[in-house]
């Protein structure tokens, strides 16, 4: 809009009121013509915690994407001689120069308990290399490679590096945690995607048509929500055939989780529909002869889309924590699948917790991701209605 153009003159006695808005500053003008997404972004940007959380979540999904690259040991390779090794610190400097290395471990038998213990030997330094070769995998599922972020010059990374220690079967915990990100984070996305479809569809129908259909769907939601979740999951998980593969179980778990998860979203969508149906601007569009489909897409959808995004973000951590809880209880994913819940299964008894507390480290990413999603959801919810 050019400012140079002389304002047209009107034969109007209330020119002053009109001029008020004419001479807006450039900054005000920017707000005046901003779309709702711009306004939302400007508001969201001010929510510092949510911004940080957004970056944390992006980082986690990047880890999930490049899990094999960030791992250095084959997450499925077991070795009885390496069981329950404690985490091993990285030394970044060697005699004043940057040269990351770890001390090699020497396994000994404790003469009193006959337990195998590992002690670092400061004389044997294992130099770490970036982009070293390791076990073979498919990068992004596309092409085969064996490059990893860290590794050792020559020799086998599985035998030498134990950043977070190993589990009972001698599998490297760091590598397993990287790979676990993939299943744990994706099951959240898949579950929410399914819930979203069900929720928007049923909630939309409920809010749009009202009457008997609405009552039916609302009662269904109430019944579903009144079922105690853990017994329901246990029952459904028990019904799953034992011989199903990892992928089949994964999908079954997703379906089970979204069976309950859609109810929340359906309520949000229904509530927005009911509120919007009464809005004057919707009536105005109806009176102007605008078709119902266009009213829904052009007038209603943009107003509740932002709310749905916020609700979805707040539903994701529920999914993730449900998966973790189910797998922890042995009802969800089962080994050989690797997820945070499966990893935590190893830490179920007090013995492990007392002797090898590093097995609990899989709980840390769970807590971080859940918190980050909640903060992000809060920020999005605050920004969702820029006109409120």
């Amino acid at each position, binding site marked *: *809009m050019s400012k140079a153009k002389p304002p047209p003159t009107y034969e109007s006695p209330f020119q002053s009121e009109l001029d008020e*808005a004419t001479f807006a500053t450039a900054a005000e003008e920017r*707000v005046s013509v901003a779309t709702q997404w711009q306004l939302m972004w400007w508001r969201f940007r001010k929510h510092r915690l949510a911004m940080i959380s957004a970056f944390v979540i992006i980082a986690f999904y990047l880890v999930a994407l490049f899990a094999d690259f960030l791992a250095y040991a084959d997450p499925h390779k077991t070795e009885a001689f390496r069981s329950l090794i404690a985490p091993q610190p990285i030394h970044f400097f060697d005699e004043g120069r940057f040269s990351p290395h770890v001390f090699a471990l020497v396994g000994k038998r404790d003469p009193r308990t006959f337990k195998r213990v590992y002690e670092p030997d400061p004389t044997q330094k294992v130099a770490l290399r970036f982009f070293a070769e390791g076990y073979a995998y498919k990068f992004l599922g596309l092409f085969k490679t064996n490059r990893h972020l860290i590794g050792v010059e020559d020799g086998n990374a599985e035998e030498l590096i134990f950043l977070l220690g190993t589990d009972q079967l001698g599998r490297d915990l760091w590598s397993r945690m990287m790979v676990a990100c993939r299943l744990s984070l994706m099951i959240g996305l898949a579950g929410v995607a399914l819930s979203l479809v069900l929720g928007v569809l049923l909630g939309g129908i409920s809010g749009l048509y009202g009457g008997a259909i609405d009552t039916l769907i609302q009662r269904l939601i109430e019944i579903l929500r009144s079922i105690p979740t853990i017994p329901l999951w246990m029952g459904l998980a028990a019904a799953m055939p034992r011989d199903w593969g990892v992928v089949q179980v994964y999908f079954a778990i997703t379906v089970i989780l979204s069976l309950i998860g859609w109810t929340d979203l359906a309520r949000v969508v229904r509530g927005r529909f009911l509120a919007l149906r009464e809005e004057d601007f919707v009536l105005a569009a109806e*009176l102007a002869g605008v078709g119902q489909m266009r009213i829904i897409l052009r007038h209603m959808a943009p107003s509740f889309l932002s709310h749905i995004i916020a609700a979805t973000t707040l539903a994701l951590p529920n999914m993730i924590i449900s998966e973790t809880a189910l797998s922890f209880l042995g009802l969800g994913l089962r080994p050989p699948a690797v997820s945070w819940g499966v990893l935590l299964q190893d830490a179920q008894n007090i013995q492990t917790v007392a002797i090898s507390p590093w097995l609990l480290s899989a709980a840390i990413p769970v807590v971080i991701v859940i918190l980050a999603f909640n903060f992000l959801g809060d920020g999005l919810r605050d920004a969702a209605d820029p006109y409120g």
Partner: protein
Amino acid sequence: MTIRSNSGAPLLEVRNLQRFFPIRRGLLRRVVGQVRAVDDISFHIDRGETLSLVGESGCGKTTTARCILRALKPTAGEVLFQTGAGEVVDTASLPKAALTPYRHQMQMIFQDPFSSLNPRMTVFDIIAEPLLASGIKNRDQRRARVENLLERVRLRPEFMQRYPHAFSGGQRQRIGIARALALNPSLIVADEPVSALDVSVQAQILNLLLDLQDELGLTYLFVAHDLSVVKHISDRVAVMYVGKIVEIAETDQLFKAPKHPYTEALLSAVPKPDPRLRSERIVLQGEVADPAHPPAGCYFHPRCAHAIDRCRSETPPLEEVLPGHRVACHRARELSLKGVDAPPSPHPQQLRTL
């Protein structure tokens, strides 16, 4: 001020319009009663005329307005609308789909300038939407029309890329008016178009409506609760009480010599700018009757100072007591009620200087 057509039929004739809202209770949502929001009202509006519908909140004036536009389906009655082609259609009985060709001939101006504009659409999209719905696919054509409309409502066309939140209440109301005008309607139903605005802005919007009526030959059904607003812009006034019209007359006649005690009470509440003219205010006793359980006889009798036994048992019909002046009161002919003998309604030019 107004252009009256000589052709016989009025632009809009409402006959025995009723709209009840069912009261549902219990698990099975059984209907246990009816709220008689609009209970058997009839009136007409001539082409180029402004009829005001006045009453307390909850008396059914907005419901009436919405029934006329078929935003609500009337329970019973006829809404006879004379279309541009000269034929008369009953919009109350037509199926919703069959209404489409007549939709654009009656449009609405809303009370709330904030909720009536979609905050997520630009001014251009808001005003152009009716055009798009009526089949004008050419964007340049719509653009030219929107520019023209914005000038008509005295807004700068450059503003059309802005979103509604950049405007003040009065400016938003102008946008709403522009949208209502987009399809060249003959009837505009204005549902309290100024009651959400500052008093200073009210006069501007009222003047704009008057100017537009002159320029475009519009007919207004003006819903209001404020008699002082009504006085300046209407030709005739209908007073509603609990879903019924209790009095309908030419504006001057109604203000000078009201025939219904309720109208008298409303008039006594009109603020007068001259403190010396301050008259005694009639404060009505009791509450407005519940439209779900209206009292027997005249609905107004529990609050009426002039009620007699007949009022408690017999519903008064709306009768013509003077030419063009109809009242629903048993004692309309005998009572002498106090009107407002304020100076004649100020000319619009005067209004502007308010």
